[in-house]
Structure formats: structure tokens, C-alpha cells
């Protein structure tokens, strides 16, 4: 494993992945549960590890996300990612949600250096260490793919 920044020692790598924010959102996920009414909903599934969730959105006629929730089961990374995503999306326009999806995807694939490039990720940068664990990237992005699927009116999204 090469780390060009030279700052990632033993403890830090994992701390970057299992940060307190992630542990806390895993334990107390926000916007967790069914959402009624909703205008958009999709199911996300990672057959490899069994992570399974639903994302529901209520979007008004102006294209603003009034409410968003998730339900389901998964690892700490996937649950915390879903929880933080719902917080980030509330009040955003559909175009902004799509833009955030793209920024988040680039972040966790290390296509973006969030410290240097302008972005709108805010708290979501806690996931910037995920790229070091390729087998876990899908956990972090499952909720986002599911959200995008809901916007695109897909019923089911699979990360395989």
C-alpha cells in the first residue's frame, strides 16, 4: 500500500475509515425508517456481502428534496454512509443531489483530493479513506447508487 501523503501511519489509516462520526452514525442512523409520502424509492443490494437497503425521497414540484430516508441492514460503513447521505441531501435540488453523487463517487475512488479541489461534500469527506480498502468501496457507495436509482426511477440497484 503506497500513501503519497506520507502521513498515514498504522493507526491513522483505520481511524480514517472507522472515524468516530462513522461509528456514531452506525449506532444512531439519522432519517432511518419508512418515508410516507414519498415520490421516489429504490432498493439497493450488494449480493457479495448482503448489504440491503431502501432509499425513499419526497421531492416537490420545484425539484427540491423535502425529505429523504433509508431503511435496511448493512455494515457500519454502509449504514453511516446512508445516514450521512440523507443529511446532506435534505433541501437540495435534484441537480445538486446528482452533483453530490458524482463528487462522492470521485472521493471514495480517490479521483478527487477533497483537501485541494473545491467541492460540496462537507462532512461526507470522512469517507476519504475508503479507497484504501477496495473491497469496502461498494459498502460506502451503495446508498448513493440507490438514491440515484430512485431519481432515475429504477426499482432495484445492485452493486455487482
Amino acid at each position, binding site marked *: 500500500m503506497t500513501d503519497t501523503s506520507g502521513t498515514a501511519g498504522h493507526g491513522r489509516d*483505520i481511524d480514517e475509515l472507522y472515524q468516530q462520526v462513522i*461509528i456514531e452514525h452506525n449506532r444512531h442512523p439519522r432519517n432511518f425508517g419508512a418515508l410516507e409520502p414519498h415520490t421516489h424509492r429504490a432498493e439497493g443490494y450488494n449480493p457479495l456481502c448482503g448489504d440491503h437497503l431502501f432509499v425513499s425521497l419526497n421531492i416537490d414540484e420545484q425539484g427540491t428534496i423535502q425529505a429523504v430516508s433509508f431503511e435496511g441492514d448493512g*455494515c457500519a*460503513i454502509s449504514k453511516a454512509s446512508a445516514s450521512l447521505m440523507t443529511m446532506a441531501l435534505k433541501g437540495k435540488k435534484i441537480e445538486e443531489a446528482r452533483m453530490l453523487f458524482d463528487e462522492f463517487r470521485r472521493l471514495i475512488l480517490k479521483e478527487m483530493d477533497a483537501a485541494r479541489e473545491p467541492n460540496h461534500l462537507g462532512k461526507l469527506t470522512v469517507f476519504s479513506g475508503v479507497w484504501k480498502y477496495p473491497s469496502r468501496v461498494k459498502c460506502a457507495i451503495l446508498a448513493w447508487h440507490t438514491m440515484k436509482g430512485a431519481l432515475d426511477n429504477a426499482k432495484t440497484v445492485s452493486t455487482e
Partner: protein
Amino acid sequence: MNMAFDVKRIREDFPNLAAQGRDAKPIVYFDNAATTFKPCQVIALTHSHYCHRTANIHRGVHYLSEVATAEYESTREKVRRFLNARSLSEIIFTKGATESINLVAASYGRKFLKSGDEVIISQMEHHSNIVPWQMLREETGCVLRVVPISDAGELMLDEYRKLLGPRTKLVAMVHVSNSLGTVNPVKDIIKEAHSAGAVVLIDAAQGVTHEPVDVQLWDADFVVFSGHKMFGPTGVGVLYGKERLLESMPPYQGGGDMILSVDFDKTIYNRLPHKFEAGTPNVAGVIGLGAAIDYMNSLSWAEVIDYKKDLLQHGTKLLSTIPDLRMIGSATEKAPIFSFTLRDIHAHDIGTLLDREGFAIRTGHHCTQPVMKRFGIPATSRASLAFYNTREELEAFAVALKKVVEVFK
């Protein structure tokens, strides 16, 4: 504990044990049920085959082809002795246990099973011993019956006896469970099936490293295993079948080497075992498997069995000290496979946190989704040990698990 087994010396034979993991941490390899490391002897023989003796087999009249053919066929003899089979005709090389099962399902199954005939499997089968029979069901209309397992992860033999009947044509059962560690009473399973007139396939993919497999003692009809789970190369495996049964079965694949003559009007198939080995086989893989068998023969089974029993007992004791660790699979007869859940921490989080400490374990359903369903869990974390693992590694593992719990506190 039997101290005759010199694990320190044995470990020197496995260069991969010195590998570094994430952040250059030394690796503790506890994923042996997925695949095992290979001793130098296997690596060296495979390497020298490619360096000095590469040739296709069976057809060449030139020197290298004769040498490669002799090495390939001498492995067949090694496998025959390893399994105590009667004849070389009974040893078929495949690309792994999975292909061996598919061969039996496709060839024996399609020819001899009809609508309404029953195939008995168990709840602890690997997907590779479930799906081929479901595919056969699609094609023939045969019926799949499943023997349940107990809370300890043991086969419920009374239920098995109830399922056996005049409609039972085939029983396909695992020897040692990859996700529970359970060792099944293979000899009894086969005896009962034979009384009902059924033939039996034993999936010994995990079992061949657990105890000696004697196909005559078992009276098994088919036995399958893979090379890479017994310290050999990937991409090579074995199907043992009783000669009488193999003779009665049509070829599984058509191609070169499995024929005696080909004409557009009529093709005559080759004799056993070549009838089932169409195309150029994994020559180097088979030769490497021979080296793996030689390696296992160089060890004492009694010592290996004692040593692994000690690892099982020591590991079970250590893990029982971790609060809220639930062991999945506590059979009386068990291989050193520790499958567990820990509080409500997801298996993949446990796997990643342990990986950071250098431990290679497997997390997920281990290709045994019905087992997960039986225990009402989505996944387990699994540490599976080989004879080159140590008590010290288990002790470090218990410490690392306690650290995982701390992270999620």
C-alpha cells in the same frame, strides 16, 4: 499436546507465511478454508515443469512430451494411493471440486435420474453442492430433499434416515463443513444410503486435509476435492468414482484426448479415465498436486490430527473468553474452523479491522447461505486454520478481537 509436530520447521516450507499485509504488518493467515498456502516443494516442481519440461501430454512422441506424460500420470497413481482407490481408472482430473460435482450431476444425473427421483443433500452444503443438483432438477424433474442441521451445526441423522427411501437415487453430502467446521460421519451416511439403494457423492474439499480419506473403507461412490485447498495449485481437482459407475456414464465434455477415433459418422470414446478428460488438462497443476500429496505424505497424519485438535481446543477456549462472541458451529467432531458473530458488529467491519492488524479471515456467507439462514444471521466472521498455524497466532487473534470490540464501544 503432541510436541512431535515441529510447526516451526513446517512453517519454513511455506514462504507465503512470511508475507506482509496492509501497512507492511506480518500476516496471520486464517483463511485456509478458502485456499491454503503452498509449500516450496509444490512451487518448485511447478516452476521446474514450466522451466524445463513443458510439453503437451499423451500425444507427443518426442522426449519432453513423454516426460510430461509420465509426471502427469504418476500423479494419478499418487492420488489413487492417497485415496486408496482400487484402480487408476477411477481417478479423473478436473479443474476443482466444483467441476467434479458438476461432472457427476451432468453425466450420471442426466442419464440415471428421472422425474420424481430424489437427491438428498444437507443444509450445510456449499453452494457448489446445491446448485448443480438444482440445475439437474430443472432438467429432469428430480426432487431435492434437504437434511436439517442442529443448533450445534451437526447433521440430524434421524431426519436423514427419514428422508431415505425407495425414491432416493443419490445422496450428495459434505465431509467437513467449510462454514461450521462440522465433520460428518461419512461412513455411516454412505452405509445408510446404500441400504436404500442410492449412490453417494462426498464433497471432501475441506476433508482431505482433516483426516485420511479411504474410499474403500468409506465405500464411497464418488469423492471430490480441489488441489488448492490441500496445499496444491489452483485450477486442479479430482473426481474419484467407482469404475463400474464411471463406465456407465456418458462423457461430460467432448474434445481431444477423450476419443479413440473421430469420424463424421461415428466417434469412439476413449477408455477411463481419459473419457472424462477432454482437452489439454492443467498439466502443471496436476504435477503440482502430486507434489502436494508427496508433501502431505511426508507428515504424520497422527501428529497433524493431534496438533490441529490442540489448535481447535485452544482457539475455542480463547474465543469463549470474548464477551458476546457467538460461535456458529460447535459440533463434537470439528475441524479448527471458527465461525462466529460478535455483538451486533457486522462481519465486514470485523474483517476490515482485523485485516488492519494483519489477520486474513473470511467474512460473509462463505457460499453457504442456507447455513446463515438456519442460524438467522446474514454473515459470520470465519477463522480457518491449517497445520502451519500456531497457538501464538490464536492468542494474538483473541487480543485483536477485543480491540475490535473497543472500536465499536
